[in-house]
């Protein structure tokens, strides 16, 4: 069960369009505060505050890497699942692109029926 206090913090954190956009962005992979701030035309300080709220809610984990702060989605397993979904998205894109290209190059490919 999810604890009530955790849900409260999570809902507060999610009740902001910028923070939801940050989570969507992190679903694609980790990013620095600077990279997260850029599409929102926001100062680093402003984005840091948003990330802090997400971190307090357990939705985001941050880690200092050199001079920058790297952010990623908050729980390992969620992170794993998103990484695998992204992996498969690329794989299906590759497969469907390949199939389409093959079919366009081999328009007369005869199906291998039971009696051929």
């Amino acid at each position, binding site marked *: 069960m999810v604890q009530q206090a955790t849900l409260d913090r999570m809902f507060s954190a999610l009740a902001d369009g910028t923070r939801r956009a940050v989570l969507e962005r992190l679903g694609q992979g980790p990013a620095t505060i600077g990279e997260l701030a850029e599409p929102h035309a926001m100062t680093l300080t402003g984005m840091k505050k948003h990330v802090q709220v997400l971190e307090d809610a*357990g939705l985001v984990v941050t880690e200092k890497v050199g001079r920058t702060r790297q952010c990623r989605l908050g729980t390992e397993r969620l992170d794993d699942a998103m990484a695998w979904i992204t992996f498969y998205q690329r794989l299906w*894109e590759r497969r*469907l692109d390949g199939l389409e290209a093959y079919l366009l190059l081999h328009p007369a490919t005869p199906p*291998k029926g039971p009696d051929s």
Partner: protein
Amino acid sequence: MSTDTTDLELRTSRQLPAPPDVVWDVYTDAEKQKVWFSILDEEPGIVRIETDLRVGGRQTAVWGPSEDQLFTEVQTFVEVDPPHRLVSDTVASTPDGQTMTTRITLTFTARDGGTFVEVHQTGFPSVEVRDFFVEMGWQGAFDRIEAYLARG
């Protein structure tokens, strides 16, 4: 093509320029798979595919840029209904040893002289928080947030 990742499942689809029996054959035949899987690659890599297309049979696909960077996908076929539907339980492994088990359902529907292929992949692991959102749906979750905020 459209892709939906708001849930812990993956859906994608594509209209292909050939009838379902042709698409089915090209999609499932191991020799043809080897050709189309890397047909758009600029750098030649490794692709090995073996298929035993029957319920309970397996397809093993191995690919990657080099021998020490190989991905593996082992599908065990659960439903084989040519040229309409193919369901498999699938274990994928990355070069660094991570694995993921999912179920893949492909449907092939005749449409506009070609085939509309739909991919539905489920079984990606979830966490409690994630389950909560899956259960509610994102829209439901946002309704709850509104109600929460209105509570004051």
